[in-house]
């Protein structure tokens, strides 16, 4: 298994199925862990950083299939920028991890539902991604991986504060539960602000497609917990599954019904403009594609378009991003050449007008 094998296909989380997949794109859980007896990364010398990387990499690779099937490790200190960017676009590493310096890496399972970042903000950041709303399944898997790694690695833990993390905002369980939602109708009706307010009241963070500091392009919103201490992991997950997410889904369903029954022309105009743009344009930016795909997805979910598959939408979404596009073309392209290649790819996938 190599990194370049990934560039031409969509990962697990974009399969487009799973419970409530018409609104819930993916469920993600990550755990922050540090190895006892080693400084946290901000206090590591270059040599200490290398030691932590060697030790954790060895533990992960030794566990092998117990962590994920056909696991492979990417040494990010050596990886070219385009490969690091590719991993960000696939949600396998964070932006800061791609841009950082010094020894660091990521272990990825073949189907990309498991990834483990080494030497990000903490020594280890375990991540499990699933399609649709599958938080319990994700927790079961990540909990097992954590247990497996714990057999060979001694994690920094203290009875009062739990798992110790570099940033005290992650201390305790070290858990971050994130659900990626597609909320185009709430955006169109302007009621999205209500979701933000409700989320804030529930001490939840709302972020864009690529996490911290990114905008909500394509009407994708990531909702995640901020409190990691004083709660049991299962309770945080149950809260998401039974309270937080159903509430937001209800809002979005309501907005979709309103659009469909009272503002059909507005809805159809958005949907068919998007189809027209994607099937006709000769130059396309990433933002244009994301925004048009959002309306296309909405139109498909509401039965306004019948000849396009969700799988196709997800493939376009992923493969038209800058690093993927350049990997596919096997060369560095910028500006109009890149926008042209993107438009060509979209027309090839959707068929020309």
């Amino acid at each position, binding site marked *: 298994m190599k990194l370049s094998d990934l560039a031409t296909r969509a990962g697990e989380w974009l399969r487009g199925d799973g419970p409530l997949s018409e609104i819930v794109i993916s469920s993600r859980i990550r755990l922050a862990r*540090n190895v*006892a007896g*080693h*400084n*946290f990364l*901000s*206090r590591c010398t270059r040599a200490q950083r290398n030691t932590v990387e060697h030790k954790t990499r060895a533990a992960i690779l030794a566990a092998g299939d117990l962590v994920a099937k056909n696991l492979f490790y990417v040494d990010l200190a050596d990886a070219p920028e385009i490969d690091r960017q590719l991993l960000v676009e696939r949600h396998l590493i964070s932006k800061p991890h791609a841009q950082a310096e010094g020894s660091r890496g990521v272990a990825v399972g073949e189907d990309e539902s498991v990834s483990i970042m080494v030497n990000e*903000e903490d020594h280890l950041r375990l991540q499990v991604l699933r399609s649709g709303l599958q938080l319990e399944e994700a927790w079961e898997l990540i*909990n097992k991986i*954590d*247990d497996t790694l*714990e*057999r060979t690695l*001694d*994690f*920094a*833990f*203290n*009875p*009062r*504060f*739990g*798992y*110790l993390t*570099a*940033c*005290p*905002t992650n*201390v*305790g*369980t070290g*858990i971050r539960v994130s659900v990626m939602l597609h909320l185009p109708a709430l955006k169109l009706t302007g009621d999205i602000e209500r979701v933000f307010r409700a989320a804030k009241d529930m*001490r939840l963070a709302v972020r864009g497609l690529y996490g911290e500091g990114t905008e909500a392009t394509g009407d994708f919103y990531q909702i995640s917990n*901020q*409190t*990691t*201490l*004083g*709660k*049991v*992991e299962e309770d945080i997950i149950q809260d998401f599954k039974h309270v937080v997410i159903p509430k937001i889904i209800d809002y979005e369903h309501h907005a979709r019904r309103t659009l469909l029954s009272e503002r059909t022309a507005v809805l159809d105009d958005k949907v068919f403009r998007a189809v027209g743009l994607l099937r006709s344009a000769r130059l396309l930016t990433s933002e244009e594609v994301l925004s048009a795909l959002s309306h296309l997805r909405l139109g498909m979910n509401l039965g306004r378009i019948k000849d396009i598959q969700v799988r196709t939408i997800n493939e376009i979404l992923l493969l038209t991003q800058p690093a993927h596009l350049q990997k596919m073309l096997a060369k560095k392209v910028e500006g109009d050449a890149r926008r042209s290649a993107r438009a060509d790819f979209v027309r090839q996938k959707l068929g020309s007008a």
Partner: protein
Amino acid sequence: MKCENCNNSQATVHLTEIKAGKKIEKHLCEACASQIEGIGAAVKGHQPINELLTNFVMAHSGLAKEQVANCEDCGMSWAEFRQSGLLGCANDYKVFERELAPLIQRAHEGATHHIGKVPSRGQPVGVPARRRTVDMDRLRKDLARAVEAEDYERAAKIRDQIRLADQE
């Protein structure tokens, strides 16, 4: 507003005098105000109050210089942590426990203790670790409730239970 006396500097001292039932207002600059008998000392005197306030705020935000020693393991100082927001090693949680506790509590909806997953290694054999921590948390909550209800007899009993559990 200009000083009523010299009509030159900015008026920063505002006096209200009541003489024979009449209210007289004066707006003066610091220099002119200090010339008035009985006022000068008060004007100069406000400096220590500012300092007092600053010291108070510093002490309560954990910025006071003298109190916390650096971590002997990683060399991290409290001031450095306040700048970067990142701790240097596991031992920092012990060294800065007193200073960290209120910050952590604020960041986690008032929580003070971990009640979630516990590593299976290094835990006492035969005691289900999670249940033990959850129970401790429940005891602490009960204690807080008893104190709030001023039921000190009950509070003392719970306190003893916590002590006992801590020794285990």
